[in-house]
Structure formats: C-alpha cells, structure tokens
C-alpha cells in the first residue's frame, strides 16, 4: 500500500507540474463552460440545463485523452519497463494511475461546478447523486482510456484514436449537440455511445430526479466501465517495443465494444431511444413558487376530455382565474431584456417577412389549424394561451428552420382571439410563473413534426415569447 500511495502522490504532483495537462484538463473544460454560458445567456438560472454536457466533456477529455497520453508517453520513455523491474505487481501501478486520473477528473469537475455557481447557477438539488453519477461516468471513460492506451502504439496514435471517439460522441452522441435537434437515426446511434448516458445521468442530478432518474444510465456506464477496465487490464502493455499489431489476446477487446452494443440494444429493447422526458422537473430556485401544484410534463397534448386525475379531484378549483390578479405594475416589472428577434434564441419574424418556399407549407398548416387545435382552443384561457406559446417555443427549442415564422402566426392568432388587456394579463401571469402547467412538446397535429427533449428549454422559450408578445401589446416594441 505504501507503493500505491507514493505512486498516487507522485502522479498527482507530476500532473500539476505539466502545463499542457493543466491546459487540457482544466482550461479547455472552462472554455466550454464559458462558451455555453454565452450561447445560452438568456437561460435562467444559467448553465443549469447544460451541466450534464459540460461535466461529460470534462471527463471525456481527462479520461480519453489525458489518461492514455500519460500512460503511452510513460511507456514510450521506459517508465513502465522500470516499474516492471520492481516487486510491485503491475496492476497496482495501473490502479494507482486510474485513481490519480479520477482525482484529476474530479477536481476538473469541481472547478466547473464552482465556476458555474459563480456565474449564477443554482446549487444542484441532488449533490450525493451527482457524486455517484460523476464517479460512474469517470469509471466508464477511464476504462475507455485504458483501452485507447492499449490500442495506441504512440502518443500521436492516442490523439487520433481519442478524436475518433470524442468527436462522434460530441456531435451525434448527445454530448455537445442536443439529441432533440438530431434526426431519429442519430438518436438511435447515440444509444450505443456512453456519452449519452453520461449526460443523461449527470443532468438528472441538476434538473431531474437525481438517483431515481439515473438507474439505466448508471447500469450502462457501469457495464461499459467494467468491460473497458477488463480489456485494458488484460491487454495492458508495459513495454513500448510490444506493438499492438504483434500482441496476442486481442479478443479481449471484444468485451469492451460488446458492452457498448449490449447497452444500445438494451436501450432499444426498453424503448429508451426517444428523448426521455423527466417526469419531475425541479423548479429553478430563483423562479417564483408555483401557484398550483401541477408540475407535470406531457409529451403529447393532454386530451381535454380525459378524465381528471384523482389528484386533481382533491384540489379545489380557484374561485377566480389567477391571472385576473395581475396588475399593470406586474406587467411593467417584467424583465424585457430578451434575445434579439434575429438571433438563434426565440427568433421572431418581422411583420413583413415571408418564409422561404420550403417552409410555407408548414406555416400555412399551422395558420389553418391553430384556431381549432384542442390544446389551444379548449379549456381555460390560461392553459390555452400557455399551450399556444408552446407552438412557438417547441420549434425554437429544436431549432427548426421554421422557428422564426411560427411566433408571428401564434401572436396574430392570440391578438385576434383575446382582448388586448386580458391577453396582456394572461401573458404576464405566464411570464411570472413559467414553471406552471404541462409542457406540450409535440405539435405534430399542427403539421410540425419533432419533439423537444428538454421540457425546461421549452418552458424557457415560452417565457421569452410571452415577454416578446407583451412588449408588442404594450407598445414597448413597435410593430
């Protein structure tokens, strides 16, 4: 144990003396964090919905690049050959190296978390689950790092192999690009990548149910980690002269990749390919408390004629619509600093702006159907207006080409349906209580296909459109 402890201590010390390791291990994840902060600057609280992605990127970099680079460069120098001459078994050095890497990755994760908190993010509601989840993610990717170190004969090969895993995971694996904005085939492919489960598992600790919402992710990551460590340990090379091509026992690689396939097939079998929707969304700490306890998310519009759930029967209906209490002061007190109409977040076509030809069919379909669309036409006014806002918000959350034209359709429908004062009050109420009500994240009945993955994003966009509509209704923004 003395050997393991000393080796662990020296490994950590050497890591902190290596400038390149510090840049890759700490600076790059922070650059990602700042980039996300700027990109999603209108989200409140900031970064909360992206910590799964950010922490996964930090772990991926540390485990799939940092670990194999260290192992392979030490092997090339003959350090591992020198270790081999000692009476300490090789597995102890490997275990110590893995443990050191875990500590390094954990410190990078804590740095990211600290930076996010400093930028205004709320404290994660499930810190213990986050620690457990982070450990599983690190374990899975450290196993992968060991496999890369086994496959790579030299450091440039580590970089090449790492990129082969890193980039697909970022782009179609759900790590850097929201799965909801990807085609269905990419969502199927992502089920075979550990990055997806890393993001899902970690994100559940920030905006989901914590441990209760990450069982499958932990199972997937654990399986992938065990298989990677097994293959990495069995094929471990301590001598640079042992080329991988001449190595015996290459079949030990099979478990590592079989685990990815097994996890993907299991996800397919359990119907987990479609973007999972959290059943219990934690309200942002800075948001006002909900008036009615209805934090339910639906992936399809709730049927108006559906029987009322038993829980609802216990809640007496409010004597007057809650939005009636809204005053002009409430409307004036809203924060009107919203993204510009020409930007990527909550875009809003000008009144004389026509959609391009290929979008006209969708816009016309929505324009024709919106008046009779049940979620926007039946039931109480508050719910109808909220659901209509989602018609603008969902395409924006998915970043569909038509996203900038539908808000105009919704706005025109609203002002032709509701008196101006009433509409202003309802929209103000929604802007003050963005977390209430059900999220409608599927508007295919209106002729627009696509499902938004993160209901919090949809709520946020609905909030932004409510503000933009109010600004027009009250003359703050001239039409």
């Amino acid at each position, binding site marked *: 144990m003395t*050997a393991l402890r000393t080796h662990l201590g020296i490994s950590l010390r050497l890591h902190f003396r290596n400038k390149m390791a510090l840049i890759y291990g700490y600076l790059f994840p922070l650059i990602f964090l700042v980039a996300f902060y700027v990109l999603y600057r209108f989200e409140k609280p900031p970064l909360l919905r992206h910590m799964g992605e950010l922490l996964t990127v930090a772990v991926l970099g540390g485990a799939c690049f940092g670990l194999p680079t260290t192992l392979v460069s030490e092997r090339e*120098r003959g350090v591992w050959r020198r270790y*081999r001459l*000692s009476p300490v078994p090789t597995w102890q050095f490997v275990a110590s190296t893995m443990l050191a890497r875990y500590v390094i990755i954990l410190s990078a994760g804590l740095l990211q978390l600290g930076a996010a908190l400093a930028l205004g993010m709320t404290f994660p509601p499930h810190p213990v689950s986050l620690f457990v989840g982070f450990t599983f993610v690190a374990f899975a990717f450290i196993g992968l790092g060991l496999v890369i170190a086994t496959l790579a004969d030299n450091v440039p090969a580590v970089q090449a192999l790492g990129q082969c895993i890193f980039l697909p995971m970022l782009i179609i694996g759900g790590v850097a690009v929201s799965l909801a904005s990807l085609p269905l085939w990419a969502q199927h492919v992502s089920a075979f990548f550990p990055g997806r489960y890393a993001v899902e598992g970690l994100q559940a600790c920030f905006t989901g149910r914590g441990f209760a919402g990450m069982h499958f992710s932990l199972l997937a990551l654990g399986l992938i980690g065990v298989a990677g460590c097994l293959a990495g340990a069995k094929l471990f090379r301590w001598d640079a002269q042992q080329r991988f091509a001449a190595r015996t026992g290459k079949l030990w690689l099979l478990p590592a990749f079989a685990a990815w396939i097994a996890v993907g097939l299991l996800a397919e079998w359990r119907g987990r390919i479609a973007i999972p929707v959290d059943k219990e969304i934690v309200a942002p700490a800075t948001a006002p408390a909900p008036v009615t306890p209805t934090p339910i998310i639906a992936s399809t519009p709730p049927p108006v004629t559906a029987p009322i759930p038993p829980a609802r029967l216990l809640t007496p209906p409010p004597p007057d619509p809650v939005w009636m209490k809204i005053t002009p002061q409430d409307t004036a007190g809203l924060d009107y600093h919203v993204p510009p109409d020409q930007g990527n977040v909550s875009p809003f076509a000008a009144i004389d702006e026509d959609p391009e030809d290929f979008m006209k069919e969708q816009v016309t379909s929505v324009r024709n159907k919106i008046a009779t669309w049940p979620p926007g036409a039946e039931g109480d006014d508050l719910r109808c207006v909220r659901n209509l806002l989602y018609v603008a918000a969902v395409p924006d959350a998915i970043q569909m080409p038509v996203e900038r034209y539908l808000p105009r359709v919704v706005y025109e429908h609203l002002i032709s349906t509701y008196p101006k004062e009433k509409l202003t009050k309802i929209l103000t109420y929604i802007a003050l209580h963005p977390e209430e009500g059900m999220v409608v994240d599927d508007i295919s009945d209106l002729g627009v296909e696509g499902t938004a993955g993160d209901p919090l994003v949809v709520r946020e966009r609905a909030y932004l459109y409510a503000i933009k509509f109010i600004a027009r209704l009250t003359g703050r923004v001239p039409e």
Partner: protein
Amino acid sequence: MPAHVVVRDLRKSYGEVEAVRGVSFKIEPGEIFGLLGPNGAGKTTTVECLVGLREPDSGELEVCGVDARRNPREVKQKIGVALQTTSLQDKITPREALRLFGSFYRDRVAPEVLIERFALTEKADACFDTLSGGQRQRLAIALAFVNRPQLVFLDEPTTGLDPQARRELHAAIARMKADGYTVLFTTHYLDEAEHLCDRVAIIDRGRIVAEGRPRELIAQSSAVQSVTLVTSRPLDGAKLAALPGVSAVVAEGTESRFQTSHATATLGALTAWLGELRTEVVELRVKKASLEDVFLKLTREESRAGFSPPSNEAEDQKAG
C-alpha cells in the same frame, strides 16, 4: 557462499529467431561479471530473463539463491537494475524518483544517502528533463541501489555518455566492487570490461563463445598480435595476407593493419618483401592482443563457422 547467479541452458526465441541458445554461466558473490557481445548477440535478452522482464522458453535461473522462474517477485526484492534506456517523467526530481522507487521495496535506503553517494546533490530537486546524460545515468544507477540489493545488473550503463561521464561511472562501478556488491555488467566497450570486470563471458549469436578472466582470455589467444604498418607506398593486401602467420588484413592507402600468430616469422618475411619492393617502412607497431582482439577473433570465428546471424532487429522486436 553459493553463487549469486546460476544460469543453466537458458533458451529464448522470438518467433522463428533464437535469441539465446543454451547459455550457461555462474557469478560468484562479490564478482564483477561482464557479459560482452555485439548488438543482437543475446546479452540483453539474457539479462531481461534474469531480472524478470522476459519469460525464458527453457533453462534454469537461480538468483541470490532463489529460483527466478518460480519466484520472480522475491528475486526482484534482492536485485537492483539499471537499464540501458531508463528514462523517467520529465518533471520528476531525483529525490522524488528515489523516494518513489524506494517505496516499492521492503528494505530501502534513504534518498539522501543515494543522492550524496552518486553526486546528485546539486540536482536533487531539479526536474529530470534538466539533467545531463551523465546525471541521468547516475540517477538510473542510484535507483538500482534503493533496495540495498545483493546483486546489481548494469545493462550497457556507459552507452552514449561522454568520456568524462564514462570515467565517473567507472569510478562508481569500482566503488561497488570495493563495497562488496556482485555486479553483472553488459557492455560493448571492451576496454572498460577489461579494466573493470573480474570475469567476462563473450556471447555471440545467442551462445557463450568464451568465458574467463580478461587476462586469461587474452593469454589464451596470446599467439595473436596486432601489427600496424605505414609504408612509403601502398601495399598489395592479398600479398600481405600471404605472408606467414598473417590474418585479418586491412589495407588503407599506405597504412596496413593485420594480426599475426607468428610475429618473428611474419616480420622477417615482411622485411624481405619490402626490400624486394624497395619500399620504406615509415612506422611499424606490434601490439599484444587486447580483449577487443580476442572478441573480434572469437566473433569472426563464429561467423566463419557458418551461423546464420539473427538480425539486430530480431532482438529489438522482443515480443511479449
């Protein structure tokens, strides 16, 4: 006291290539034993089998009274090794490296003692990438002493060092002998083997072709003497080789080098021949055989015997 190293019929192949073909030798306690041979001869493979880096195909290995094939971990507690190409992490300091490697053993020497002994005091807390070649090699040898070893393996420790650093290492090895350590030492610098080793074994193409004290080996081939001749005109090498006792002729311009097993007869015939050619002798040196001459003679004989030499690459590509 039993021998510190006993090797019997050691064999090791890499695929089709037999790198070591039945090597046997013994090293007595307190001896400095040199294993000599050209590149690819099998000396590094032999050492690697002894220190537990390679699994032999067959043969018996006993190190410090322990069966090295059955109990390599126990052997590693008793030996120290300085490899030919030891390199450490760029940012580790000699003090840290000595503490780290010391922690691997039951019995260990304090880093400060080794730092002083191997003249690393000035650089004790400097990063490895700032050390000179000689300092790195002294550190590599210091690492071999962290566990108070009974037996030390030095694999070509002076390769690539400048003359000053080589001289310092020779002094360090001489001190090991004075301190009573047993040392197995591989090199292809035959002058240092002749100077430092109590006994040597010459290994060529996986076999030991000669073994004994350097002076005994030289004496055994004392019939061979080296001659260097500079004349006023170039000589015909073929005719020079035809003189009595002459072998290994190298004629380059007016300088000719050869060996002779009968110096008196050769010089007599040479003088007569030069007289006939009316060629003047500018310089003539006759030197007794060195270990290098013995080595060259033995390894050339092996070559003439028709062995198909394993390529250097074969030994370099040690698998598994």
